[in-house]
């Protein structure tokens, strides 16, 4: 028997939300432990880096265009461009390259 689709969606959302607030429910103050502090310092950069590559190369129709966008975005961010500019430069790179590839 098929579960009610709206109940299904509610459970999906609730389970996701629990993961979001799990740390909020247990943490009362910043952790003093030096290893854990250092660990949490690296977590955001490592997570985002892992999610970016190689996914960016697989997201585009042509892997070459994705790779070029990766390089353009890194260069733009390295030289101080903001969030929006970097994102737009990446899109434009893919748009132009896939026109030729």
């Amino acid at each position, binding site marked *: 028997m*098929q*579960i009610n*689709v*709206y109940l*299904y*969606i509610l459970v*999906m*959302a*609730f*389970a*996701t939300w629990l*993961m*979001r*607030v*799990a*740390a*909020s*429910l247990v*943490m009362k*103050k*910043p952790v*003093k432990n*030096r290893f854990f502090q*250092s*660990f*949490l310092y*690296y*977590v*955001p*950069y*490592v*997570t*985002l*880096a*892992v*999610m*970016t*590559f*190689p*996914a*960016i190369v697989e*997201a585009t*129709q*042509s892997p070459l*265009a*994705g790779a070029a966008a*990766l390089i353009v975005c890194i260069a*733009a*961010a*390295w030289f101080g461009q*903001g969030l*929006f500019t*970097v*994102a*737009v430069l*990446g*899109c434009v790179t*893919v*748009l132009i390259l*896939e026109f030729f590839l």
Partner: protein
Amino acid sequence: MLNESGSNRRIFMEGYRNGIPIGLGYFAVAFSLGIAARDYGFSALQGFFASLITYASAGQYMGFALYATNTTLAELMILMFIINARYILMGFALNQRMPEGTPLRTRLLVGSCITDEIFGITIARPGVPTPYYTFGALIAAVPMWAVGTALGISMGNILPARIVSALSVALFGMFIAVIIPPARKDKAVLGAVAVSFALSYASVHMPGISALSQGNRTILLTVIISAVFAALFPRKTEDSEGGAVDAD
């Protein structure tokens, strides 16, 4: 704390502005998610509702796919825990920057806004994470996620593939804009990013690990790489003002 509401409003608008490019990226990704959701039997209204309250890309994709296989609610719950477990780590990183005495509701509100991208811009913003900022970003971005899903379901392939392809890079561009400036300032972060790229690439092709879902590969690599760097290049211990993550 004088003038707090004015400043909160300003922070909310700052979050809202930064949420707009995220929303544009979401729109493209949601559109392709919608195309998949239609195949699994979801209507545009159901997809809209699911995206509005779940706002989790990989999690929703899996949730939609499971629905077609007559899974039980208990199984659904456990699998959603696993695929979204990286949000636990993100929640810890955000809460680490909130001083002792931060009300539980503030912590819950900030946590409730976690998506990969909103986490990224919140952690990149100096100072203590505030719900005004995260909600500003959430309110800008999530409606576009929901509308994109509904349009993907109802309109299928109306958007040219070339446009979808270009837009899909937007999210990664934002990730890069978050990780590169601190990597330029801190050699250890630069090393961590380089190692992450390399191992992430390797893990896609490594037998065993490549069989894991992308979400679980992300958790595994994040825990291992962050732990190794924390052991090799520990930070100076800092107090509760959240300075440990401030790269600026």
